[in-house]
């Protein structure tokens, strides 16, 4: 009730009038009543009634909120935040080197950005995460669902089926080895079809559709409360052409980043973005840097850069608030995103291990 007039969600012109007329708190407004208000401010009676309704709703909402103790006005101690963060789940990537480097996997409530040249494996990791987020809790997963926003059209469902099948197989092997009740129960509902049915796919053809989709995300996540991962593949593609005015682009990207941060926090989901690389030509040398400019670098909490070293794929942790910078090798196999297999391992009967000295052949030819 003691809420200041300036903080109420009224039209700016109306707020200016209230300030000029000397109103300071919501209490004063409510006491004046609609007739008095319309006379003092010189507005119509309907407008005064509307304004008072808004004020009443706000005050009611405030009292309810302080009673519940949730929302933007809650206070935390750092210890409480630490405990909450440690209890937070991670989405594993099936590449143990990458999971270790990230401190457990892709963290919920944070934005992770993956940058890299075309073909290095960004979309592959996104598809792997969309499957891994659904791993049941008894197998160490977060049992969530995934939203996949595709701007480039690179989401090939056949590949997701392969990755999902390998994931189910992996869980089945664990269940067989450990023979626990809840493992077997969880496997009953964990199949390729169920995995596919919990990946919600959106195709955005330009930046306007992407912005609209992100506006609708909070509503969608409230309706589908089990979603724990939002992937946007890729964020750079719609923003790298069609912008004469770069300051507009920067502003839109900042707004997008804000909304994604809020969404990640409110709904306890991980947000994963993929970005392109661009060349920055310096005085004597040139480097590959993530696209979308310097200010975009602040949007993500964690930044991974994927690159090549001859024929080996490498992932570098470029930015992280809690983990050390490091570089690890990874591989993309027919089963998905994996660790690099050491070449000393004897080739198994089905010959899926790849000898790096041999020219890559199709799987069927290795008979």
């Amino acid at each position, binding site marked *: 009730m003691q809420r200041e007039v300036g903080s109420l969600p009224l039209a700016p012109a109306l707020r200016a009038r209230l300030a000029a007329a000397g109103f300071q708190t919501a209490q004063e407004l409510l006491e004046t009543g609609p007739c008095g208000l319309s006379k003092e401010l010189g507005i119509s009676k309907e407008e005064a009634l509307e304004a008072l309704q808004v004020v009443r709703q706000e005050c009611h909402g405030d009292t309810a909120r302080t009673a519940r103790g949730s929302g933007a006005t809650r206070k935390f101690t750092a210890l409480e935040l630490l405990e909450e963060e440690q209890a937070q789940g991670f989405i594993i990537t099936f590449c143990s080197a990458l999971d270790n480097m990230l401190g457990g996997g892709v963290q919920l409530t944070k934005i992770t950005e993956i940058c890299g040249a075309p073909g290095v494996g960004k979309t592959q990791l996104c598809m792997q995460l969309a499957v891994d987020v659904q791993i049941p809790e008894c197998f160490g997963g977060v049992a969530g669902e995934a939203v996949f926003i595709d701007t480039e059209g690179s989401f090939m469902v056949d590949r997701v089926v392969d990755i999902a099948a390998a994931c189910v197989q992996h869980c089945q092997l664990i269940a067989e080895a450990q023979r626990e009740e809840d493992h077997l129960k969880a496997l009953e509902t964990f199949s390729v079809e169920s995995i596919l049915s919990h990946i919600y796919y959106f195709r955005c053809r330009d930046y306007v559709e992407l912005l609209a989709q992100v506006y609708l995300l909070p509503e969608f996540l409230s309706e589908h409360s089990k979603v724990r991962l939002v992937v946007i593949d890729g964020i750079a593609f719609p923003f790298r052409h069609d912008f004469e005015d770069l300051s507009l682009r920067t502003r839109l990207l900042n707004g997008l980043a804000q909304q994604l941060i809020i969404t990640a926090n409110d709904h306890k989901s991980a947000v994963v973005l993929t970005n392109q690389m661009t060349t920055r030509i310096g005085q004597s040398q040139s480097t*590959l840097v993530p696209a979308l400019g310097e200010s975009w670098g602040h949007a993500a909490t964690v930044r991974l850069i994927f690159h090549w070293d001859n024929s080996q794929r490498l992932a570098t942790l470029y930015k992280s608030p809690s983990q050390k910078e490091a570089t690890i090798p990874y591989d993309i196999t027919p089963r998905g995103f994996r660790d690099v297999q050491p070449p000393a391992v004897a080739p198994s009967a089905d010959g899926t291990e790849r000898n790096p000295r041999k020219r890559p052949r199709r799987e069927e030819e290795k008979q």
Partner: protein
Amino acid sequence: MDWDQFDLNPKTVAALKKADIKSIKEILNFSEADLQRLMKLSSADIQCLLKTVSRTLRKNSMLTALQLYQDKDHLTSQHQKLSLGCSVLDNLLKGGIPLVGITELAGESSAGKTQISLQLCLCVQYPYEYGGLESGAVYICTEDAFPSKRLHQLIDQQHKLRADVPAEVIQKIKFGNSIFVEHAADIDTFHKCITKRLSLLLARGMVRLVVIDSIAALFRCEFGVSESVTKARYLQTFGAQLHSLSTRFRTPIMCINQVWYQNCCSFYRRVMMQSLVVGNRVAPALGITWANQLLMRLMASRVSWPGQASGVASHCTGSLRTLRVVFAPHLPPSSCYYTVQLEGVKGIK
């Protein structure tokens, strides 16, 4: 834009008209604070406006991956691909060229890129059950003249290449009539061609394949370092326009690209090749800016020693070539051999 048809508060509609806001794009371009000032509405009203407008734009846009997988309708399914006319090559690509997105075919000269493209122009005209799209093709030449003699040779020999298709089906197709050849030797002509001519042909449903031979030739003259920004902008604009046409009309775009050699490159070109030379001495031209626009990249090359692959070269008459998948979201890096025969390009198991 008729704001009355939206599910909005009449006060909001009046404010929109007064502020002269004409499209959803304009609304989303403004920040919330700007909208509040412009339309003199409260923050709750603006939120409501943004949600309503977004909902209208994104109505019915959600699919689950399961629905995508189970969609077998040839008009919308991801499983539908454009066959290359040879089962070995189709197996390499798990069906053929994807219908939405830009596929690049890069390689040295006389590796067989034009041969493969001509073959695709004929394959697209077959019925859906034979891997085609029952429509024609646009062939945009940017440097050499269109190889019409070779095209007629291929047309005559179609029955030999496509033994899987009944003869009466092949005879009914008038191959030559549905291939539209365009010439665009410089960037402005090319731009006009894509924005006007191509959209027209696609909108009328007369073509379902676009071949650009070659994209590198348009950018051949050495753009200096200071012009690199202009060049990058052209590449991104072309890429975006082609991508948008491909998405709207579910039409594959096949771009032929040339290669740069690592040693005889200027500093600028070596820079552009940086991330693309993976253990090879050649890399596709145009650098990472162009590579970012692609869905799939294929590389065609001549095999240096034809007898190297044991047992393979013995029965083929032409010299041996390889078609390699460099990157694709749904394919592992893999390759296969092929030869160029009289009747067309044929893969070798």
